[in-house]
């Protein structure tokens, strides 16, 4: 086995499984939220992504939270605006102007 492959396995498989429970899961979830909301600093992101390389619990949370956001965006149906709505607003505004 090449050294590169060994190090890949260590980084992506062994190290992640090594930590199945995160001692700081609540704080990590807060940081994850900020990252997924695009409100994080580059430092927070770097620290978080280095952490999930080694923490199976947070790696799972990352994938789950990301999937929930995508699910909400994709599956919540958009209601079409009634055709007459803008027209009726414009009529009401005209009445206000005349008054």
């Amino acid at each position, binding site marked *: 086995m090449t050294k590169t492959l060994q190090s890949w396995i260590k980084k992506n498989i062994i190290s992640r499984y090594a930590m199945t429970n995160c001692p700081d*899961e*609540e704080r990590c*979830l*807060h940081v994850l*939220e*900020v990252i997924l*909301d*695009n*409100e994080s600093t580059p430092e927070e992101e770097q620290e978080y992504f280095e952490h999930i390389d080694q923490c199976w619990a947070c790696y799972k*949370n990352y*994938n*789950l*939270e990301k*999937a*929930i*956001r995508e*699910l*909400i*965006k994709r*599956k*919540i*149906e*958009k*209601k079409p*605006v*009634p055709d007459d*709505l*803008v027209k*009726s*607003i414009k009529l*009401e*505004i005209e009445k*206000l*102007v005349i008054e």
Partner: protein
Amino acid sequence: MNQMSETKRQQYSVDEKAKVFDGEFYPHIDSMYNFAYRLTFDEDDAKDLVQDTYLKAFRFIESFQEGTNAKAWLFRILKNNFINDFRKKSKEPSKVDYQEVESYYNSDDVNKSITTDLRVDTLKDMMGDEVSTALNTLDVDFRTVIILCDLEGFKYDEMARILDIPIGTVRSRLHRARNLLRENLRLYAKTMGYIKKS
């Protein structure tokens, strides 16, 4: 309306008002209608709420600074309209006691909801109706932050202005809302047999 008192007043002629409505306000009608519908769950109420919001926007247009965030400005009026007029009329449950929520948020109970047997594969099988129900059954204040953030893409500071709450409260409310939403999705998954009953 104290909601608009922070901004400097700008004078508009009739033509300028029409220009602002066509260029900056009407393009948001789709988002406004969907927000109103998700607050009221009724097409007619949503229409009335949006119409009232645009009429208020017309009456108070001097408080709107051209080139600033029109969508957030309109959403704030709509939200206040909903609280002041529609909530009283509708059967919507009363506003949650936030002191209670904040103390719950700071307690250990909140941590219990983190560990979940919900999986990414499970979510993929969910239908739109199930996802909508999971969102719609949240209390209106929790539902609102999810809608504003995840569906409408508002930033924390914009949400703080729309909802008249500090950014810290936006973040804690969102966190709590997401825990509740995740729990709802998990319960639906369990009911539908996507997750084995323990």
